[in-house]
């Protein structure tokens, strides 16, 4: 690598990681002020673990993420199969557009319009409506991830199975699904993360009693920097870091 490329890369990575590093470091700061280092302390973590509403919100978020990622995983995989396997069916362009549009749609629009629908049809707002909303915008992401894998899949594998007498169902569950399973899992994980991350859409469509973690964090963040939020963030970052490490270790081991 040239010195120029090395510098560019270094700066970009520093830019990406500096704020995260600041968060982590100051979550252990005894002082409540960001600029003052008051010594190492874990007291914000103690406060965090005693914060009942925050923990309740985290549980709501987990529930919503699991359910919506499950729905998006199924719908996205089906959509990817339709696009890859059904050839040039009529309305294919519109189908693709409808699938991808929620991915780039500003969240304020998705959130507002879904809320208006839910109110219009008289659906009670709560965890269920957040699940529906998250599944809707995550389906496209799953379809993209699974679709990429399907595109790379040798079609003659499925033809070989059919040729050897396997029924379409046996071909799908015995050959296709096991071969695309890693991408379905990756799509599920992506949908899960997107759901955990969403503030805007959930704010629109949630009802009383359904406060997600981002909604809870946002209500505190608006009031300014708060070391307890730093501690919560550090825990979330550590979890993601562990998951990413485990995933890359697993893939590396399978590759060997």
């Amino acid at each position, binding site marked *: 690598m040239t010195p120029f490329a090395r510098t560019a890369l270094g700066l970009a990575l520093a830019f990406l990681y500096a704020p995260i590093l600041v968060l982590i470091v100051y979550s252990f700061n005894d002082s409540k002020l960001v600029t003052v280092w008051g010594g190492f302390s874990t007291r914000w973590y103690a406060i965090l673990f005693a914060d009942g509403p925050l923990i309740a919100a985290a549980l709501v978020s987990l529930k919503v993420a699991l359910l919506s990622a499950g729905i998006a995983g199924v719908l996205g995989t089906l959509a990817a199969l339709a696009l890859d396997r059904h050839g040039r069916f009529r309305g294919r362009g519109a189908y693709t557009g409808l699938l991808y549009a929620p991915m780039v749609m500003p969240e304020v629009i998705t959130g507002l319009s879904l809320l208006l629908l839910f109110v219009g049809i008289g659906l009670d707002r709560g965890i269920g409506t957040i699940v529906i909303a998250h599944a809707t915008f995550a389906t496209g992401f799953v379809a993209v991830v699974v679709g990429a894998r399907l595109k790379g899949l040798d079609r003659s594998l499925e033809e*070989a199975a059919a*040729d050897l007498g396997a029924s*379409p169902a046996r071909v799908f569950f015995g050959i296709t699904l096991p071969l695309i399973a890693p991408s379905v899992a990756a799509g599920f994980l992506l949908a899960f993360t997107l759901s955990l991350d969403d503030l805007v859409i959930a704010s629109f469509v949630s009802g009383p009693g359904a406060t997600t973690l981002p909604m809870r964090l946002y209500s505190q963040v608006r009031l300014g920097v708060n070391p307890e939020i730093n501690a919560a963030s550090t825990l979330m970052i550590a979890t993601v870091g562990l998951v990413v490490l485990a995933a890359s270790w697993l893939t590396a081991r399978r590759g060997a």
Partner: protein
Amino acid sequence: MPAPLPPTAPLLGIERITKRFGPQTAVDGVSLDLAPGEVFCLLGPSGCGKSTLLRLIAGFETPDAGAIRLDGADLTALPPHRRPVNMMFQSYALFPHMSVAANVGYGLKGLGLSRKQAAERVAGLIKLVRLEGFESRRPETLSGGQRQRVALARALAREPKLLLLDEPLGALDRTLREETQGELRAIQRRLGTGFVVVTHDTQEAMALADRIGVMERGRLVQVGPARDLYERPASRFVAGLLGDVNLIEGRLGPDEPGGLRTVETALGPIRASGEGAAGAAVVVAVRPERLVVGGADGLPGTLQGTLVEATFLGDRIRSRIRMADGTVLRASAALPATGPMPGVGEAVTVAIPADAARVLSA
């Protein structure tokens, strides 16, 4: 040498089958009968429709017209998994998430075999393709030749009467390919399974096939044993596909008793066999090794030329001879058996034996 006709009950009967992809006709009214135990090669350049024809037999494509019968039973409407034919794929299509044994045994489900019978069948097949000891290996740990053998064993597991092979040796390197050709033939003879092999490699088709069918732009243009196709090609395309050939343009003389005709060419009159209307524009096809170069003075029809290039190839000599009118003919191993080799630039005589010359439409 008439082509051996298939016996009265063909194993495979293809009747005027047609497949179109949009505006393009991939397979155009092909009819073909295959005898039991026959090895039939579909030969042609890429895009000629040979793979599509194979996929039509396997059931991966639905024909727009025509019918396919196996042992008299109509297969045309059956999905691939209900057809009693099996296919060996060009990419081998080995299931990457299954062991060698699981791959080979995949097709045994639903045949009504007991667990023990199935295991015996798999063991027998693995022995047949000499892969003992590799049963629990994953396909990605095998060499190309080993994968090819797993694919063959897997395709034979259901004991099909007809096996379809799509470029079965295409992924192997040259030396391995020749060795594998022999093995494939030996296994085929032992089992008596009918083979339909798709290939673009003429040498491979000649080495494997009882009969070859040449395809050109979706049509089956000539069918017969390799030697028939080589010596009596039906068209310039077949002549060129089967091997090197000299093509001399001319005009066909009148019909004569005895089958031989005279063709007026820029080189002079050439005697050749073939049909056509008197006065039609034709080409005379002559294989380079059938040209008689030198030592033929005085024979009727002897032509004069100049040697412009001679390449020593060990078992033969390949040469290029420029004729009086500027036409360049290619000859092979047709130098005098004794005496000195004529040098480049020397005058030589060239004779075209009548039994080596074929009249083809231009």
